[in-house]
């Protein structure tokens, strides 16, 4: 989904290519009412899997949200389940 450069362990996402791939992958399923489930900080180059660098690890949901023109991103995380 998120396409990055080839810096393994500290990759930076490439916005336009990530946007194209994400939309192509998700939008048809969303239109049918499905819930796509995707992993957090895992991305890939054209050839192999990468992991996002520390700064971007905070943002994968935001990157996906922007790519999909999402109305909102909720950081449910521990707060919803812990209390």
């Amino acid at each position: 989904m998120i396409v990055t450069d080839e810096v393994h362990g500290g990759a930076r996402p490439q916005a336009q290519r990530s946007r194209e791939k994400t939309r192509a992958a998700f939008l048809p399923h969303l239109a049918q009412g499905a819930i796509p489930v995707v992993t957090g900080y895992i991305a890939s180059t054209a050839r192999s899997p990468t992991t996002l660098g520390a700064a971007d690890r905070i943002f994968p949901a935001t990157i996906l949200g922007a790519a999909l023109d999402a109305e909102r991103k909720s950081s449910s995380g521990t707060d919803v389940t812990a209390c």
Partner: protein
Amino acid sequence: MERETRKILGRLGHSAFEEAPFLVSAQCHRVNVADGHMVAVRVKLAERVGIEQVYESALGVSLHSARTAAPYGAGASPSSFGTENDRPQPRLDRDAGGGMSVTVGRLFPDRVLDYRFVVLGHNTIRGGSRRGDLECGTLASPRATARQVETRELIRPCRGEGAMTRPIQVMKFGGTSVGDASRIRKAAQIAAEASKQRSVVMTVSAMSGVTNTLIAAAEKSAAGDEGAASVLALALTAPGTRSDPSAHPKASGAANCVAEIDRLIEQDRESLQGLARLLGELSPRALDVIRSRRANLCPALPPAVLEEIGVRRIAFDARS
């Protein structure tokens, strides 16, 4: 708590956080409070300072953060100081500053360390939703760093083609919230509920602890420890790690889900044995391959649960 505190107060390195160089000892207690996280702190300082300085330091945090919190209007100072002996209290103080203020109180000299005090913050406002607003505000600020500007460009929405009829919501579930099967089930229920109003995409991290266990085993394997792979496989199939059967869905997906997890664990075992026997080193690229496979295990679970709830779902391989 022990790691996150040092991470937050640490520095951002090239590809990892450099944790702040001090020790933190912490223990979490769950109590029946609707909202609000309270921390009782005892602290040993690097040098001797008077209690007035500690007090001023608490207000100093307030003055510093007040600038970033400005969009929330007057009275939203991020930190306030309670002087009463029975404050802060969750119900009475968590909503200070619209839930954005952190309240510090009961500051006294400590007989063992230097000082003790109590800190209270609203976990779902300061620690959640409006903190997200704050992050966006920082990214949009004219004072944003080069790195923040780069991130801002990356996440800038581009409207236009393929407009959806329903708004989309991306829901992020962190390590702890998918830490065991019952929490995975709860996360799936939250997503299913939200999907009644919007199109929902779930992003999930690896189950808490699993990734660290895996990386430690990969490092041992790369150092030539052939046994590490089998030890890891045992650890990952242990009760609690793979989720307990009672929380597993009765739907047809459940058996496939368990089989899929077993297959991934077997793959991990083979990869690590390969590391130990053939490579003898752990390159960043090899580590990415191992980590991505493991993180991919987790999405196998929420779809199975969603199916049980009766929601159509698709699990995506983030590598594809």
